[in-house]
């Protein structure tokens, strides 16, 4: 699904990612953990195609294709999804219309006709229930005036609607109370399929009690310094990041 090899990325001459290697296979859930400022969000942005980063070395192979030359929208159309740590408010644009536009542009890219209105609405209903979204939420402007929890739920709702092959969830747990966390995690788990994959980026182990990862990576100072099974997250919780720092 995703294969990152020796990825080196800098912003304004400062190297943030110093040679990342990552293999994610279909059906897997990976967690990337690490203290603040180690490059977790940068990694997410670079995979999703945000401009302003300088890739000096390495490649990102997504479904067999090097995507570094693709724009953010092309990557999305190829099946990539980024759940934002800080979802952006877009006043004046309803979620319904935003999603219908996105779905139709993605379908167009894949050579498909626009989604029929009834099918779209049925899918909206189904996914709204999955995320326990309020009825009126979908008619509101994208993220405008949403609480932190609503914004994060809306990210997973968009993911559910867009049905990506690979979802990267950047700190989706931050700012969530325990109920919202449970709903978000349940949503992610229900969307899991043998043909898709998820990368969960998180600071805390808490989310991983709900979303059980196949592999846990520790990102530290621009490198993945340790990878292991779900127990690694527990070890981290117990021993803290100091433990990694001392080991590396």
């Amino acid at each position: 699904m995703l294969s990152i090899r020796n990825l080196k990325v800098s912003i304004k001459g400062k190297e943030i990612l110093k040679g990342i290697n990552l293999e994610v296979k279909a059906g897997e859930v990976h967690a990337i953990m690490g203290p603040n400022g180690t490059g977790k969000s940068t990694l997410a942005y670079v995979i999703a195609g945000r401009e302003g980063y300088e890739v000096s070395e390495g490649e990102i192979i997504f479904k067999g294709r090097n995507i570094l030359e693709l724009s953010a929208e092309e990557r999305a159309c190829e099946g990539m999804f980024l759940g934002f740590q800080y979802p952006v408010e877009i006043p004046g644009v309803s979620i319904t219309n935003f999603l219908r536009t996105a779905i139709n542009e993605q379908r167009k890219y894949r050579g498909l006709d626009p989604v029929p209105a009834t099918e779209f609405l049925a899918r909206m209903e189904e996914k709204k229930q999955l995320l326990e979204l309020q009825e009126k939420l979908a008619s509101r402007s994208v993220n405008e005036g949403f609480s932190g929890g609503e914004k994060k739920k809306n990210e997973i709702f968009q993911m559910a609607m867009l049905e990506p092959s690979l979802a990267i969830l950047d700190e989706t747990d931050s700012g969530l109370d325990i109920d919202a966390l449970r709903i978000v995690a349940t949503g992610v788990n229900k969307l899991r399929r043998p043909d898709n994959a998820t990368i969960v980026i998180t600071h805390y182990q808490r989310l991983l009690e709900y979303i059980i990862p196949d592999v846990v990576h520790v990102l530290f100072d621009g490198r993945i310094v340790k990878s292991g099974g779900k127990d690694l997250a527990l070890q981290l919780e117990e021993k803290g990041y100091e433990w990694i720092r001392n080991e590396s």
Partner: protein
Amino acid sequence: MEAGIVQSIYDLKEYLTGVFAERQREITVHDTAFVAAKRARAFEWFSKAGFPHAALERWRGTDLSRVLSHEYQASPAPPSAELDIDSIFKCDVPHFETLLVTQLNGWYADRQNLIRVFPNGMIIGSLAAAFIKYPKLIEAHYGKYADDSSESLTALNTAMSQDGIFIYVPDNVTVEQNVQMVNITDFKQNLFLNTRNLVILGENSHLRLVQCDDSINHDITFINTVSEVKVGRNSTLDHYKLQNKDDHTTLINSMYFHQDEGSSVSTNGISLNGGLIRNLSHITMSGPHSSADVYGLYLMDRYQHIDNQVLINHAAPDCESRELFKGVLDDHASGVFNGHIKVHRDAQRTNAFQTNKNILLTDKASIDTKPFLEIYADDVKCSHGATIGQLDAEALFYIRSRGISEANAKILLMYAFVADVINKISIPELRQRMDDMVKKRLRGELSQCEQCVLNCSTHEHEKVEFKIDLSKI
């Protein structure tokens, strides 16, 4: 070069002065003594002041020297009595029922019926005809609200205008139909036009007025329109100004509103295209418990220039004014917003709010925005805010990360930015059409060569299709 420009300005003034002197008989043919006196005095003001120039504070950001350097023909002849108005203009906005009042080259176009009196008492017709037929109304209102002494172009208009539209709504009349004023220019030479309108609402009356400016040919045109609008006690006026002129057109649109006690004015100016546009909204609230909503939206590109001047005179207590102006400027386009709120000494408990927000799409585009609050009362709530920015990079990335193309993401953000001004349009059919036109404009598809600003679908009767379906936003 500097001297050359000054020379040109001088020439046009001299030319107009010549026209005023040589064709006096023709220009003043419909004048009553009252109108003639106004005209003479106004010409003195203009002679003294000349054309506005950059040294004047209110004209600092709008340089007329280039457009004044052209040679124009002023005071065109009236259209022939046989003119078939339907042949030059037909509004085809779906379900938009309007009472159409057309002007051609400044003249009231229906030459067969210069004055129409409706069953409810409303009068619509030629202003020149009204000079003679309704001298009492004219003497009570004409030239009373327009400010000849401080706006020399308004003075020039008072001096040289020959016709325009006259609307009178008597007391206690609610005009059910939307009245649509369409000002068309069609002239084979460069045209300098002074058109004058007078709208009078009595007490407890209600009117929705849509004012469209459009051109048929593409010659260089300078349109200097002055409208005086009196809104009587407890009356409401819902006014729209739709501007879609070509790049060779200069449009000076000066509106002088005068509000009595308990009246409400809402005026919304949507400028989609135009070489140089200057809108003046001059509002005086002379009676308590009045309200004024002044909105504007401008989408300019290439070398277009837009100037919105708002002066709100809070002359009575317990009044409220709200201003919201939003604009997107692309390429080398430039803009000015000047929001002057004056709260007079006795205007206690005034609420006055002003917002101007701008997006500049290139580093060559510019906006000069200036709030100017002049407050002499002490119990007043006033606020103002002006912003200038670019499209938000994070928001663009967010939208693109969902698979929406960069071009469409930009349109989506620009549309989202201006949508609240469009949503202020209270006539649903008009709002829908403006919505479509703004989207077309943002997609770079709107041409200004069609007839009415509302007539954008003349050559494509199918529904306007967007890659982004914005219809449900």
